[in-house]
């Protein structure tokens, strides 16, 4: 496959939809008259931005699960680490405006009676450094973890379980006050980013557009990866790992590379998520979150990339609606979704839609020819 395949029909649809959203949401929020039917209220912009970040996170999971068969139940950890890196930058930006008005230390450190900034907080007041950490911290953790796991051929459910153990251990660690990350309150009370106030509607619009842009870029990156020769080997690993190894490919190198890239994508998603929701705390590491995000991918259709985006948006919109309208039933609905999707639509919404489309096309295509009236044209 050549680079031409990156811009196939699916990509064009996805990218143009994203572009439309990136234009429409800020315009409807900023230019339409408040109160009119077209106006998008201010609180919806960060909400939609949150969905977009989740979509990027789902994309990163689809890359490893859909194309390489690695089911990570700890991807929320990489998301949260990216979020913490961004949160640390935003924390340092508060400066002396905190409740205790300490010139350097964030509020929670003053509260814990700390005298100096811990060494791992150095440099986070510099935006480019913080952004580098957003990529590097999840990337390095994923590299070390993956190097250990893939080298000794930990696969399947075993890998899932130890990724879960990883995020659980991180959650316990970040809940500790003396870790230096704000304990169970996490990092919050952010004021501004690069000098722009986070509460203002225009900053939020920009953050939204940036999130959509990141999602588009992430999508293109994944599409390019899975379309390349590298991607073909990944699929081979997914479908027959031992056979691929016997053919002479260093399976663990491929897995390690894709796992690390995926973790960095998740980190970026987390970094974009934090300024829009205004808080990052250890509950983002909860194993349940990581499992839930796998179902977004499954709902949309695993191994399709576009499906991951769709699934994240649909499930999270559903969650927002359910927890508002029928909070009692959200877990029933989510649980039911897990079962329904795995049992009945293993290819997700996108797969099911494609199946219907093919069938419809065949029915439509066979109608004009009289010979198909015998019914033989319908694919089971």
């Amino acid at each position, binding site marked *: 496959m050549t680079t031409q395949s990156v811009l196939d029909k699916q990509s064009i649809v996805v990218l143009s939809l994203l572009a439309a959203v990136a234009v429409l949401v800020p315009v409807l929020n900023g230019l339409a008259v408040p109160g009119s039917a077209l106006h998008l209220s201010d609180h919806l912009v960060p909400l939609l931005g949150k969905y977009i970040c989740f979509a990027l996170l789902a994309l990163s999971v689809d890359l490893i699960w859909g194309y390489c068969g690695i089911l990570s*139940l700890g991807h929320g950890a990489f998301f949260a680490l990216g979020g913490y890196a961004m949160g640390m930058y935003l924390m340092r930006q508060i400066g002396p405006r905190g409740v205790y008005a300490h010139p350097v230390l964030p509020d929670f450190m003053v509260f814990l009676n700390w005298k100096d900034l811990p060494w791992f907080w150095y440099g986070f007041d510099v935006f480019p450094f913080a952004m580098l950490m957003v990529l590097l911290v999840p990337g390095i953790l994923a590299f070390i973890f993956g190097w250990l796991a893939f080298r*000794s051929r930990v696969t399947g459910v075993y890998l899932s379980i*130890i990724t879960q153990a990883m995020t659980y251990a991180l959650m316990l660690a970040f809940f500790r006050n003396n870790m230096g990350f704000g304990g169970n309150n996490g990092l919050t009370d952010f004021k501004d980013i690069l000098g722009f106030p986070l509460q203002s509607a225009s900053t939020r619009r920009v953050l939204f557009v940036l999130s959509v842009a990141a999602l588009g870029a992430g999508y293109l990156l994944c599409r390019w990866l899975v379309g390349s020769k590298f991607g073909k080997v990944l699929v081979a690993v997914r479908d027959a790992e031992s056979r691929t190894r016997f053919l002479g490919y260093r399976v663990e190198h491929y897995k390690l590379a894709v796992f690390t890239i995926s973790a960095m994508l998740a980190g970026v998603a987390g970094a974009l998520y934090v300024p829009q929701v205004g808080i990052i705390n250890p509950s983002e590491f909860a194993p349940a979150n990581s499992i839930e995000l796998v179902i977004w991918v499954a709902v949309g259709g695993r191994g399709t990339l576009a499906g991951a985006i769709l699934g994240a948006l649909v499930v999270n919109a559903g969650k927002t609606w359910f927890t508002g309208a029928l909070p009692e039933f959200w877990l029933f609905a989510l649980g039911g979704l897990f079962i329904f999707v795995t049992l009945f639509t293993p290819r997700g919404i996108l797969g099911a839609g494609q199946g219907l489309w093919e069938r419809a096309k065949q029915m439509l295509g066979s109608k004009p020819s009289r010979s198909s009236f015998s019914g033989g044209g319908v694919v089971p």
Partner: protein
Amino acid sequence: MPSLRIVLQVFVLLIGMTASTKAGPYEEALPKFAADSYADTETALSAIANSGHARALTVVEALRDGRLLLGAGQVYLKEVSGTLIDVATGQAANPTGNLKPIRVNNRVRRATEAALGSLTLLSADPATRLNAARAVFRSRDVAALSALERAIAQESDVHVRDALEGARAAIILSKPDALISDKKAAIEILEARGDQQALALLTTLPSDAPPELVKAAGDAAEGIQTRLAFWNALQNVWYGISLGSVLLLAAIGLAITFGTMGVINMAHGEMVMIGAYTTFVVQETIRGYAPGLFDASLFIALPLAFLAAGTVGIMIERGVIRFLYGRPLETLLATWGLSLILQQGVRTIFGPTNREVGTPAWMSGALEVSGLSLTYNRIAIVIFAFSVFAVLLLVMRYTSLGLYVRAVTQNRRMAASMGIRTNRIDALAFGLGSGVAGIAGVALSQIDNVSPNLGQGYIIDSFMVVVFGGVGNLWGTLVGAMTLGAANKMLEPYAGAVLGKIVILIAIILFIQRRPRGLFALKGRAVEA
């Protein structure tokens, strides 16, 4: 020894009766109070304290609290309830005229305290004597020394005697004018006592003490520390075993389902929860209809919990999991969905808050073995966990179901070719694993909060145990549970509970790199995937 106690009581009663019938030192001392002078009060006090009269203690207490009243030359005692008593006769009295409390100064007050200490040291109730000895040990009041020695001379209870000896040694050690040889003997007694308090006493010797005494005390303190460290380690081992048993209970059902079918049942924790809620329902029913059976409630709950969780397990297997064989990751997701539904279901039915599950009388309290304190509910859980393990081992080894399950575990297709109905075995094995989780829930309801989140707390730990121990091998689960439990409790004193747990998790992650199939991996020839 109830008979001995009765004899003692009768004896004490006889003494009291003889004392009250004829005029003894008690009766003679009473009029001295009437003068209401400090010196007379003190004489009267010591006479009463040494009289051995049955009411002596109440009188001294009343004097301390200002409840000993004087009116027209007669002494009355106002009880805490407010009724007045004639001190001489012990009968209720209704005096006319003004009553005023007998005055006390600091000197009398000190004498009262000392008298109280010796009076309670000589009390007829061993528990009171023990408490008095402990109080004297803490106060190290030299004034109590003579009373102590008298108490030691007539003490019959070994425990109380030890406590009294300890108190005497503590006083002698801190008494400036005691002989060095006596102090050395005191140090030996304290060393034999060997607890934290004795240690504190030995390490805080006055700075001007003679060097040989300091050395003896230092050696004794070292000996105590060694012994305390030993008991502490033993206590930690016990905590480790106890946590290990909890982990074993939670994980053993998982070992069966994961072992036979390779099915990761994320709803396993909810089976435990179902067991715990079954216990709750059983106890509520018993409270409502047959309160006398409460002590047996756990035994009634056990089979019911097994049935309830097992039935749910079989329904899950037949309804969901059997469509997903060969797709372990999808099974994981579907069972996670089931766990969410079960949690929310329980939350809807029983409410989101913790439900109260009572502890039968025979399970409360603790067994004290010298330096150890073993609570009965933990002991019960340890015994129960090992019994469940043993029964399961026997089932797997000697029943036809166990044989079939093992055959399917080792080679599904071969087992099918031999005529084993693998579908049915799957369902039964899944039911068995879930049922065992249910009875684990009965046990865990005794030590954990019974809430819809009960299962969530155990699921990761159980997976760690099974993965660490190795799949398809019950012994592996036992070793895994005990190792993790012990390691957790060993790390806790140094690293704290949370950090210890993190260290364990990281250790397991690293361990899996070395042995991806756990400690006791099943050996087979099949190349995976």
